[in-house]
């Protein structure tokens, strides 16, 4: 057993967990943050993506110990009160989701993509960068639209701040 301390969605968290505990299980089982999903167990599908210190990471293959001391953000932590994150708004407005299961990981991945490219994205780049997120419902068509739309919205939001 190990004691870990980390920050999740801005709140300090500590837990005694088995050494083999995965970050996704800490989030889902111990913290009740069930928005982060498990889709494949092998780092392929990206349903489990969260941000660790601002970078998109697959939490189903991250041991809790690897996140000790880190700042973790999940899908539950990206909106400000009732104000949705621009990426969340873009997914809704462009019908970028159907069953919703891959959606939290898609959104967390997409935010990281927009940040890394500073919003300068085109369709080919978005499709390439989404290689680590699998969706079975949408055929990606509207997810790609959503990410491109959000990239514009996030530029505007950043300029306003």
């Amino acid at each position, binding site marked *: 057993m190990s004691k870990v301390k980390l920050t999740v969605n801005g709140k300090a968290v500590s837990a005694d967990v088995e050494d083999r505990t995965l970050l996704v299980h800490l989030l889902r089982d111990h913290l009740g943050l069930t928005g982060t999903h498990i889709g494949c167990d092998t780092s392929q599908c990206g349903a489990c993506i969260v941000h660790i210190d601002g970078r998109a990471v697959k939490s189903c293959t991250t041991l809790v110990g690897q996140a000790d001391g880190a700042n973790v953000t999940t899908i539950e932590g990206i909106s400000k009160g009732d104000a949705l994150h621009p990426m969340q708004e873009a997914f809704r407005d462009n019908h970028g989701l159907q069953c*919703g299961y891959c959606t939290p990981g898609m959104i967390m991945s997409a935010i990281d993509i927009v940040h890394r490219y500073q919003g300068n994205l085109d369709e080919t780049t978005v499709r390439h960068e989404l290689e680590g997120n699998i969706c079975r419902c949408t055929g990606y068509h509207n997810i790609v639209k959503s990410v491109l739309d959000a990239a514009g919205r996030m530029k505007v939001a950043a300029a306003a701040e």
Partner: protein
Amino acid sequence: MSEGIGARVVRKEDKRFITGKGKYTDDVRLHGMTYASFVRSPHAHAKIKSINVDAAMAMPGVVDVLTGQQLVDDKIGNLICGWMIHSKDGTPMKMGAWPAMAPEVVRFVGNAVAVVIAETRNQARDAAEAVEVVYEELPVAADIRAAIAPGAPQLHPEAPGNVIYDWTIGDEAATNEAFTKAANVVAMDIVNSRLSPNAMEPRSAVAEYDSAEEHFTLYTTSQNPHVARLVLSAFYNIAAENKLRVIAPDVGGGFGSKIFIYPEEMVALWASKRTGRPVKWTCDRTEAFLTDAHGRDHLTKAEMAFDKDNKIIGLRVKTHANLGAYMSLFSSSVPTYLYATLLSGQYNIPNIFAEVISVYTNTTPVDAYRGAGRPEASFVMERMMETAARQLKVDPAELRRKNFVTQFPHQTPVIMAYDIGDFGASLDAALNAIDYAGFPARKAKSKAEGKLRGIGFSCYIEACGIAPSKAVGSLGAGVGLWESCEVRVNPVGTIEILTGSHSHGQGHETTFSQLVADRLGIPTSQISIIHGDTDKVQFGMGTYGSRSGAVGMSAIVKAMEKVEAKAKKIVAHQLEASENDIVIENGEFKVTGTDKKIALPMVALAAYTGHNLPDGMEPGLKETAFYDPTNFTFPAGTYICEVEVDPGTGKTDFVNFVAADDFGRLINPMIVEGQVHGGLAQGIGQALLEHAVYDQNGQLMTASFMDYAMPRADDLPSFKLSHTTTLCPGNPLGIKGCGEAGAIGSTPAVINAITDAIGNNNLEMPASPNRVWHAIHQQQAAE
């Protein structure tokens, strides 16, 4: 009305999904909950010599270890197939026993033999590793050819030669006669590859038993919770229906794979009673590959006879279908009534004869997967038509057009009566969208750049809106396929729609609300859609076969008509007018031609106070309807795919993909387009990427996303969609259904395009760069 029928309303359900507040089965946590982990066979075919659970029982946190023999001892029933098919000799299909956990013989890798119930997930998995099972391996039949070979290993004593049924449809003598008169005959061997469904949410079940009430609750990943309850109760002896509540909360995709009742939810229920603790089971992805019913897997020989004018005069088809190791819930119907009845395609074919032989193999059970039989039919028909055009040296579009059904209704020789359509209109729309006239120039330009460009067509038709209960009953279905709806107008005028349809990504909360909003002229925010809980919704048949618009929404219409009729009577009474003069506009009931009106909330309140109702009228404003469809619906369209193949690498690039669909009336075009996009991705996935591969020992070689090539964003193009419309005359909304068309129509278009590009028609799916490269070089060597 901006939120009514035809409006691109953003989805009501999205806020919970984009904020991480969706509630899926694995999100359910109950007090005292335990975790189940299954012990599964590593062999495709073996006798169980012994099972020793002692070491596992002694492991930390283990509550119990249960085996197949205990299931038998507790008189839990075997899994069943609910659709009876009779062979051509009149004998019923040969269904082998399928216990939820095998007591004696395992027949596929992943067949459950025992289950560990423990305090934590990890403890359950650790202990499952410690269960000692001694097997005696048996010979394996891992595919159709091995299963039907002389001396093949026998899977079930009930099915000699591993044949489940040998079924036929159509007039054999007349078809053979037509072939004697043919000017040309086109013949092909066609393989429809095996697929894994792979909904992103793995299957899950949480079962709880209340010993005081002798009552079970099951949360599960189901497309049809009422059917699950019916089957668990009537056939598996879990509990009486009134003692079993089944809840399918948010479900993360189904694609058919969550229609069926699987061993694991049965065992979870049973184990919750045995242990006195709630039991959760959630499968991991490899378990999903091993146990979720697979799709397709046909071997077909097809022959098409043409007269001298290139009119089709006959079609003969012989298909072997692989149903896996056991007969899943609707498996028998997929290669028969959902497949061979669509072998007329969009064409006027006077004579059709088809024979379907379904066989057992030592593989995962096979059942309905998006399209369920219709993709296999359209693949046969559209590969045949393209091949015929090449052989007859005519334009593939014009060969199809020449043979289109143009008069409706049209009775095919294989049961279906097409009610309406305009196949030429969708072909024209697709030809325009892809600029067919400009293709030769584009092909020449590619050639100049060292690339091979090809174009491929698919003019698909399918049958949705399943189904008229009497008709499917006569064909062997064990259930009726109507749908139900209850409309509850609350005393303050808000509305709850309780539906037997189930949404697992389709957006029913939005489209069903749009229908009601359209009828009453109220905002969708005043309407709630309730589904997926057998304690709330009286009964329903669930969502599959693109039926929720055509059947589920028709039930809503029927119930709304009753509500509106009663409300009009109340208004007419209070305003001293004739009920025939009452119209509904913008949420108000108005006496036409006057300024007299009562708003919906006041009508509802009047119904519930009962102070001033017509003599003899019951209080309240709540109505129920059961809608049984009068016919199948027939979505149809044309897909054209244009590809460019690099002869150096065999890699296929999409240049263009256009879809022109006729779905009848569209309630929300945004959602319809989303359904098509997803279907196209699955159909293209089969053509280019996906394949569930077994080795000859029955080991599944593609049991993770590392090995099974799911379509990813950079594998797919953006799609160009358009719609042509003929309204379905068979239901009140004119809806045909849109959920599966993309998967049904797209696969042959892609293969037709690649084979056109490379000049070699001999190409199996998936058309990987390796296979395409070899096909190019095989062709070059032949030349």
